C-alpha cells in the first residue's frame, strides 16, 4: 500500500521544490569530499583577524559591564547602593550578603523561594506543550497534503502579527467562564497558544530542509507517518527544538503580563517576575534589593542557555534564514 502510493505521489507536496531539495542534497553530499577543507580554512582565516578579535573582546566587555555592575551592586550594603555607584567599590570596598539573605530568607515576606517554584511549574509545561504541538503541526504542513493547507499555514503564520495585549481580555473572559482563571492551566494554555505560531513556522521551515528522498526511502521501507515522525523527524529536529525551546523558555520565564492577567496576583500561582516587580516595595524605597533579586531570577535562564547554546545559533539559522 505504502509502496504503490509513495511512488506516483512524491512525498514532497510543493511542486518545483523537489529540484531545490535535490540541489541541496548534492551540495550537502559534496561538502565532505573536497570543497570542505578550503572553505573551512577560508572561513577560519577571515574570522581570525586580530582586529576582529580585538573588536569582539571590546564588544564583549562593553556588553558585560552593566551586568558586572549589577552583580557588584547586589553584594553592597544598602547605604552604599543608595549613595554611590558600584564603581566606587574600587576605592571603598565593602560587601555584604544581606541583600541575598533578605530575598532568600523564607521567613521574610520578600522571600522569592515560593515564586521560584511557581516559575518552574509554569515554565516547564509551557515549553514542552508548544514544542510538541508545533512539531506535529509542522510535520503535517511540511510532509502531508490536504485541502487548504497553504491557506491554513499562512493563517497560522499571520497569527504572529496579533499582539497579545489584544487577546488578554477576551481570553480572560473565556477562562473565567470555564472556571480556570487563577490556575496554572490558564497560564499554560495561554503561553502555549502565544508560542505556537512562531514554533510552527520555525519547525516547518526546518522540516522542509530535510531531503524528500529520506522520507521516500522510509516510505518504501513501509514506514507510516507516525514512524517517520518519531524515528526520523524528531532526532533530526533536535537543534530546532532546542533553539525554539530556549526562546520559549526565556519568554515564559521573563513574562509578567500573561501570568498577572491570567493567574491573578495570588501568591499561589504568581511567578518570580511578579515577586521581583513587587520587591522594591509599594513606593519603590527598597529598590536596593532588586539587584540581588535579579541575580536569583537570572540563574536558571543562564544555566539553560549555556547548556543549550550550541544548538541555539544553528537551530535559528537553519529554521528561519534559509526557509
Amino acid at each position, binding site marked *: 500500500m505504502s509502496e504503490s502510493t509513495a511512488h506516483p505521489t512524491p512525498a514532497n507536496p510543493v511542486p518545483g521544490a523537489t529540484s531545490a531539495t535535490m540541489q541541496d542534497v548534492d551540495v550537502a553530499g559534496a561538502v565532505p569530499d573536497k570543497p570542505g577543507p578550503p572553505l573551512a580554512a577560508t572561513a577560519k582565516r577571515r574570522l581570525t583577524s586580530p582586529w576582529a578579535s580585538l573588536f569582539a573582546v571590546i564588544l564583549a566587555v562593553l556588553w558585560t559591564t552593566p551586568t558586572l555592575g549589577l552583580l557588584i551592586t547586589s553584594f553592597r550594603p544598602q547605604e552604599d547602593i543608595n549613595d554611590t555607584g558600584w564603581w566606587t567599590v574600587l576605592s571603598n570596598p565593602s560587601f555584604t550578603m544581606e541583600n541575598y539573605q533578605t530575598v532568600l530568607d523564607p521567613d521574610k515576606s520578600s522571600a522569592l523561594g515560593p515564586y521560584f517554584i511557581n516559575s518552574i511549574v509554569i515554565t516547564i509545561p509551557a515549553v514542552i506543550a508548544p514544542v510538541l504541538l508545533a512539531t506535529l503541526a509542522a510535520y503535517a504542513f511540511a510532509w502531508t497534503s490536504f485541502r487548504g493547507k497553504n491557506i491554513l499555514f499562512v493563517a497560522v503564520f499571520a497569527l504572529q502579527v496579533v499582539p497579545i495585549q489584544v487577546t488578554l481580555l477576551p481570553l480572560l473572559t473565556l477562562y473565567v467562564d470555564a472556571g480556570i482563571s487563577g490556575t496554572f492551566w490558564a497560564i499554560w494554555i495561554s503561553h502555549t497558544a502565544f508560542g505556537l505560531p512562531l514554533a510552527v513556522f520555525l519547525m516547518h521551515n526546518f522540516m522542509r530542509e530535510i531531503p524528500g528522498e529520506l522520507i521516500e526511502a522510509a516510505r518504501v521501507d513501509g514506514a507510516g507517518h507516525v514512524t517517520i515522525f518519531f524515528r526520523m523527524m524528531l532526532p533530526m529536529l533536535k537543534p530546532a527544538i532546542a533553539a525554539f525551546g530556549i526562546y520559549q523558555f526565556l519568554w515564559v520565564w521573563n513574562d509578567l503580563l500573561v501570568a498577572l492577567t491570567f493567574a491573578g*496576583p495570588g501568591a499561589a500561582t504568581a511567578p518570580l517576575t511578579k515577586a521581583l516587580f513587587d520587591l522594591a*516595595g509599594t*513606593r519603590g524605597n527598597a529598590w536596593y534589593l532588586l539587584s540581588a533579586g535579579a541575580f536569583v531570577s537570572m540563574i536558571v535562564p543562564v544555566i539553560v542557555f549555556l547548556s543549550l547554546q550550541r544548538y541555539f545559533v544553528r537551530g535559528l539559522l537553519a529554521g528561519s534564514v534559509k526557509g
Partner: protein
Amino acid sequence: MTRMMSRPRTRGAVLVAGGLSAVLALGACSSDDDGDGGSADGGSTDCADFESYGDLSGKTVTVYAGIVAPEDQPYMDSYKPFEDCTGATIDYTADKNFEQQILVQAQAGNAPDIAIVPQPGLLQQLVATGAAVEPPAEVGANVDEFWGEDWKAYGTVDGTFYAAPSGASVKSLVWYSPTQFADNGWEVPTTLDELQTLTDDIVAKGDNKPWCAGISSGEATGWPITDWMEDMMLRVGDPDVYDQWVAHDIPFNSEVPTEALDAVGNYLKNPDYVNGGIGDVSSIATTTFQDGGLPILDGACSLHRMASFYASNFPEGTDVSEDGEVFAFYLPGKTADDHPVLGAGEFNLAFADRPEVQAFQTYLSTDLWANNKASASSEATGGGWISANKGLDPANLVNPIDKLSVDLLQDPNTVFRFDGSDQMPAAVGSNAFWKQATAWITGQSTKDTLDKIEASWP
C-alpha cells in the same frame, strides 16, 4: 465555633485597647508557625464587636490591592480579629500592577470581592464597568459618622455612594531639619508670606540653597510638581476654585491655575532657591523623588515639599521627630487661618454582595478597624499608615509624622481636598500633566505648559 465565641474576659475594657492588645498578641503569635492559636490562648480578643456579623465559618473574602510587602503585613494583621471572631477567611493579595490589573479583571468578570482603590478616578472607571456593587447601609452610616462630607463625596460616583475610605496620606507637608532650624533661629512659617521670608533668610545666610526637589519617577516622572501645583491652587485660589479646576469647569490655562503654577515656579524655577545639595534647576528633573529630600540630612538643603509617606525614604535610624534630624511642617495657607490640606487615600470597593463580604466591608469602615490597622502598622512597620477616620486614636500611632498628619486631618479648621491629578481623566492626570510639568521644569514657559495641558483634556 467555640473559639469564635471565645469568652469576653476583658469585657468592659475600652474597645480600642481590646483591639490593640489583640493585634499585638496576634502579631507576636504570627511570627511563629502557629498563628491560629493566638486568640484561643491570649484570650484578649473581644469578640463582642463582631457578634453582629454572625457566624461566617468556612466563608472566604478575597481582597486585592496595590500595597505590597512590607506594608501588606499590617493589613493581614488587622483582619485577624475579624477572622478569629467570625470564622471567615480573608485572602489578601497584592501587586504593584494593581491599577491596570483591576480594570482588566473587573471587565472580564474576575474581580476580587473587595479592591482597595487608591484613586477616585479609578473608582469611577471601575463602577463604570458595572461590576462594582453598592455597600450595605451600615457602611454609609459609618462613613457619615467617622469621615467628613468631603471624604464621602470621593467615594461616591454619580450620586451613589460606593466605597468607604481606607487609608490616607497628607501631601501638604514641608520636610525640614529641626536641628538646623534651631541652630539658625529659624521659625516654622505659618503663612505663605512667612515661607517666602524664611526662604530669603536661608539664601541670605548663604550656607546652602533653601529648597530641594526631585521629580523623576519612571513613567510617572513629573508627579511631584502636580502635587506642588495642586497645593498652590488651594492657596492662591481657594478650595472652590480648586474643585472647578479639577472638574474642568474652568480651563486649565485660565487665570488662577496660571498664578498657581507661577507660585510653584517662584520656588522651583528660581536658581537661587534650588536645588540644594543636588545641582541647578534642571537637576530636579533627573533626581528621583525618593532622593529629592535626602540632602536635608547633611544640611545641604533646608526645605522639601513632599507627602507624609516620604518618612520611609530616610535611611533606617534617622531621627524623624519634632526635635530630631528631620521632620515636617504644614505647608502654610495664605493666612494663618486658612487651612487647606491636600491629600490622598484609598477606598474599599466591593464587587460582591455576599453576606460575608458585606460584613467585612462594614468592619473596614469602623473606627475599630482603623485603630487595629494603625496599631498593626506601628507594630510591623513602625507606622507609616494613617486614616482620616475621626475615631482613630492618635495613641495607636508611634510615628511623629503620622501623629502630625492625623492632627492635620482631624483639625476642624481643615478643608481637605483629594489629589487633583488622581481625579482628572487619565489622559491629563496620569499623562499630559506629568509630562508637561517635566517640560516646564526643564525650561518650558508656564503659558505653553498650561496651554498644552488644556489642549490634551479629552
